[in-house]
């Protein structure tokens, strides 16, 4: 009988009870131990992998709900102002031709026409803001989807390289894959982030600081010249031709 292997070991016996072999537990678990040692020896690489993964998850959890709510608010504002709601109510308010046919009726009609056009312009501007936000959300989602698509194979290679660290012949290969993979991951995350940030800054400028953009470029009232600010705040009501007629 051969010398027993040091414990802990498993003894293999046949049906008649004769010992036919032994398996050393220590030998079997040595790859796992080597893997743990490799992880301990590469604390910084393990840390960087976890950080990059956390950063990807952070970018993935963009608040779609908040953006959707904002889009819905702009759409609601456009719907309530446009012909469906406010426009319809305004049309019902205007008296019929037979009820009011004084000289000032023409001026009043012109005012109502302009007011309607301005309301339509505002509604179109709101709708424009909603669609800009929709574009921003879909751009962000596409960017992050593309990033994840690129990163998954890279990260799989990096994880595989941690396993390769456990075996001395493959350690240099593992380190090369690990470093190249982490560098590629960081580059992809950085590029995606830069891309997203520059696009969001453009959107924020279009909607936030330059609040005339939507009116002058896309939704001027029918009577305003192209490229001019229609100055929507200055609605002049001049249909009272004979002001003294309304005074006691």
């Amino acid at each position, binding site marked *: 009988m051969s010398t027993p292997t040091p414990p802990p070991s498993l003894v293999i016996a046949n049906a008649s009870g004769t010992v036919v072999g032994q398996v050393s537990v220590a030998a079997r678990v040595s790859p796992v131990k080597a893997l743990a040692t490799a992880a301990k020896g590469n604390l*910084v690489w393990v840390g*960087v992998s976890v950080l*990059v993964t956390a*950063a990807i998850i952070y970018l993935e959890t963009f608040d779609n709900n908040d953006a959707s709510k904002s889009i819905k608010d702009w759409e609601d504002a456009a719907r309530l102002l446009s012909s469906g709601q406010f426009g319809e109510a305004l049309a019902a308010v205007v008296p019929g031709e037979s009820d009011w046919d004084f000289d000032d009726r023409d001026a009043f009609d012109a005012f109502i026409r302009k007011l309607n056009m301005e309301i339509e312009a505002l509604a179109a501007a709101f709708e424009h803001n909603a669609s800009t936000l929709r574009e921003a959300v879909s751009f962000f989602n596409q960017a992050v989807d593309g990033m994840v698509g690129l990163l998954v194979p890279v990260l799989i290679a990096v994880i595989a390289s941690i396993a390769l660290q456990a075996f001395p012949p493959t350690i240099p290969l593992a380190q090369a894959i690990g470093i190249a993979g982490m560098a590629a991951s*960081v580059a992809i995350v950085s590029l995606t*982030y830069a891309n997203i940030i520059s696009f969001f800054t453009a959107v924020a400028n279009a909607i936030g600081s330059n609040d005339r953009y939507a009116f002058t470029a896309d939704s001027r009232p029918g009577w305003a010249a192209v490229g001019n600010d229609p100055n929507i705040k200055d609605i002049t009501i001049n249909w009272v031709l004979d002001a003294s007629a309304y005074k006691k």
Partner: protein
Amino acid sequence: MWTAVLFGVFLLLIALTLVLGLFAAARPSPGLRRVRDLCMIGAGLALLAVIVERAISAEPLLWVIAVVLVALLALVAPRLAKQWRAGN
């Protein structure tokens, strides 16, 4: 907006960690390794702040990632400190 800046800092630090790691692998020196380790820990702290802010304001699920990050820093930082004291 400070979260965007902090995330940029995180990306810079993590890239710096990789570059320093490469140099440290090519020419081992304790000082270089310490700077590399500090960069990694700094990147972790920056990302932790960004993630905690997002977890509070919008996405409670990110608390899970925050806990993982805290655990990572709690496990890695003392071990790195031990390696420093050992003179590696």
